[in-house]
């Protein structure tokens, strides 16, 4: 019965957020039923759209899976944006450097490069926290800014598409060679290799967290650092591991955003959201909605991916700004985090009524 409320309460919270969404759509002068229809159509209307939804969900899933590691170890990682960029930059640089490498080698290499890039960007705040007591909230926020500027610098200078130098100087890399593109899984569809990679990554995170000594140590540090230390676990090293692993997964999201994109290149508009689509933040939302459990983060990411693709359609059909989707994301977070107490209350009620029955 407790399992039932565990699933029911977040769903009710989401439903409540959607009710607010419907009210907003109504306030904007459109019919909420049309709005919902447009969103469902946009997210699931055709097999191509389902594929697009899955693709949009992929970076959320990877960031979210990483977040589960960090939060389980009681470190707050809000550096997802920067870690995505770091992974994308390193993997793109590698792909530009060895363009002729056969696909079968190149794709694992760029994935590794992305994991390393994001991992380093995540490990820096880990080291700063563990060995210099610099709060990770401060350092991850600041490193987001550094990563954005690093991207702007590299894409305007060393990594710019040579074609752009003499002409319009768009800060973007050249189009990567076709052997760097993530292969599509179904002919003619946008569904590419990144999607199963992300799902597998989430499963691996589950195994690491709950089936390995490393995961045990991470959770022990998160649960009670003093007790963990007393048991001989290095709190410092595990903080670095948690943020490093979390960053690596965000870095992998960066790889997928480049090598699975339609344009097959890295381009900046000066900020981070133009490239990441705010996946560094939305991934946190997905992880939370999945109860900070890597496996539940899979359907949860898909749900938020569908919210994003649905919002695009909502804007196209009903001219409702897709800012609505962002506001709704925020509301869902608030309702879900608030629901713990509601859940406890419901469980107490259930227990009592069950006892009454027996």
């Amino acid at each position, binding site marked *: 019965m407790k399992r039932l409320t565990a699933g029911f309460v977040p769903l009710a919270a989401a439903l409540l957020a959607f009710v607010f969404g419907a009210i907003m759509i109504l306030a904007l002068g459109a019919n909420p039923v049309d709005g919902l229809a447009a969103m469902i159509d946009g997210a699931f209307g055709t097999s191509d759209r389902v594929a697009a939804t899955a693709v949009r969900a992929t970076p959320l899933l990877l960031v979210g899976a990483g977040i589960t590691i960090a939060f389980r170890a009681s470190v707050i990682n809000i550096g997802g944006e920067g870690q995505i960029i770091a992974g994308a930059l390193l993997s793109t640089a590698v792909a530009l450097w060895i363009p002729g490498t056969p696909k079968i080698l190149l794709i694992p290499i760029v994935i590794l490069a992305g994991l390393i890039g994001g991992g380093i960007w995540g490990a820096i705040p880990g080291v700063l926290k563990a060995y210099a007591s*610099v709060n990770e909230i401060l350092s991850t926020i600041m490193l987001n800014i550094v990563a954005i500027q690093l991207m702007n610098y590299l894409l305007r200078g060393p990594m710019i598409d040579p074609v752009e130098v003499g002409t319009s100087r768009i800060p973007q890399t050249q189009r990567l060679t076709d052997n760097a593109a993530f292969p599509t899984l179904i002919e003619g569809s946008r569904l590419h290799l990144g999607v199963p990679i992300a799902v597998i990554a989430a499963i691996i995170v589950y195994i690491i967290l709950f089936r390995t000594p490393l995961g045990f140590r991470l959770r022990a540090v998160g649960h009670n650092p003093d007790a963990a230390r007393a048991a001989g676990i290095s709190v410092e090293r595990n903080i670095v591991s948690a943020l490093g692993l979390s960053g690596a997964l965000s870095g992998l999201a960066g790889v997928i955003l480049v090598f699975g994109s339609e344009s097959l290149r890295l381009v900046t508009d000066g900020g981070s959201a133009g490239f990441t689509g705010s996946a560094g933040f939305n991934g946190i939302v997905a992880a939370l909605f999945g109860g900070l459990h890597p496996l539940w983060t899979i359907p949860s990411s898909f749900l938020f991916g569908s919210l994003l693709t649905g919002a695009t359609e909502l804007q196209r059909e009903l001219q409702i700004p897709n*800012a609505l989707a962002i506001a709704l994301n925020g509301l869902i977070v608030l309702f879900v985090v608030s629901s713990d107490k509601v859940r406890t209350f419901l469980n107490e009620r259930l227990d009592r009524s069950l006892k009454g029955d027996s």
Partner: protein
Amino acid sequence: MSQFFTVSVLLATLATAIRFAVPYLLAALGETIGQRSGVLNLGVDGIMLLGGFGAYYTVLETQSHLAGIGVGIAVGLFMGIVYAYVTVFLHAEQGISGIGIFLFGLGFSDLLFQELVGTPKPIKPLPTLDKLPGVGGIFEPLIDIPVVGELLFDHNLLTYFALLLVPFVTWLLMKTTFGMNVRAVGENPQAADSLGVSVAKTRFIAILIGSSLAGLAGATLSLQLAIFQHNLTNGLGFIAVALVYFGAWQPRWVLAGALLYGLVTATRIRWQSLDIIPQSASDIAAMAPAIITILALVLLASRVRGPAALTKPFSRH
């Protein structure tokens, strides 16, 4: 290089740094109070966006800065009630609730802006002291004082308010019963509770003050810039939260952090405008405030301990 070190350029840069620092300072002081009571609010950026839009829209419609500032604070207060309710009474995880507030503010302020305004219309800017209706004449000669006139007097009233808030918040936290309660529930809520201090009530009020200041910070930003736009803050609220850690929960160090951040940013832009920093290095230079903030914290304040109960919900059972 020599151009930069003329006194007038240095002082003008400093004046720009102060202007730049005010929204950070207001938001960070508010966050300091909240965190001292044990509550982390990562939603500052979202509250600033909503407060900033509210203030901008009010001034656009009523032409009254005072009304705009009032609405900015009221919006902050309202979001504070939501946040306090969620984190204090429903015991929701603070970091994540903050992200929720941030995303809601980011989306909803943009939605309101697009529906109510659309075209970014400039509003009349906040008057500096010399342009204040009625009393402006008194300050006009002061600004002409050589060397320090512009630095000290060429600001709007909110700047002075923000600066005065620094000693006030210190006093509030260190010398008043309320401040003592705030620090007590932030350090050891169980002990405070056993002494009859209501943890929930104290935190609730601390959050409301903090959020109101975040709303005011947003209002200051949009009124200083005399405009609103999608994501006007561009992450400013997150930097304000970071500055609280930088300032080790001490208002005067938070002020130092805000000024440092503002000064590094203002200097970078000034140097670019004087061609001291070449355009090709401008992105690298733009990293400076972030990197300097991290390094300063590594070097200066590496062993400062924050409120012990920060981010920990409290319940009696």
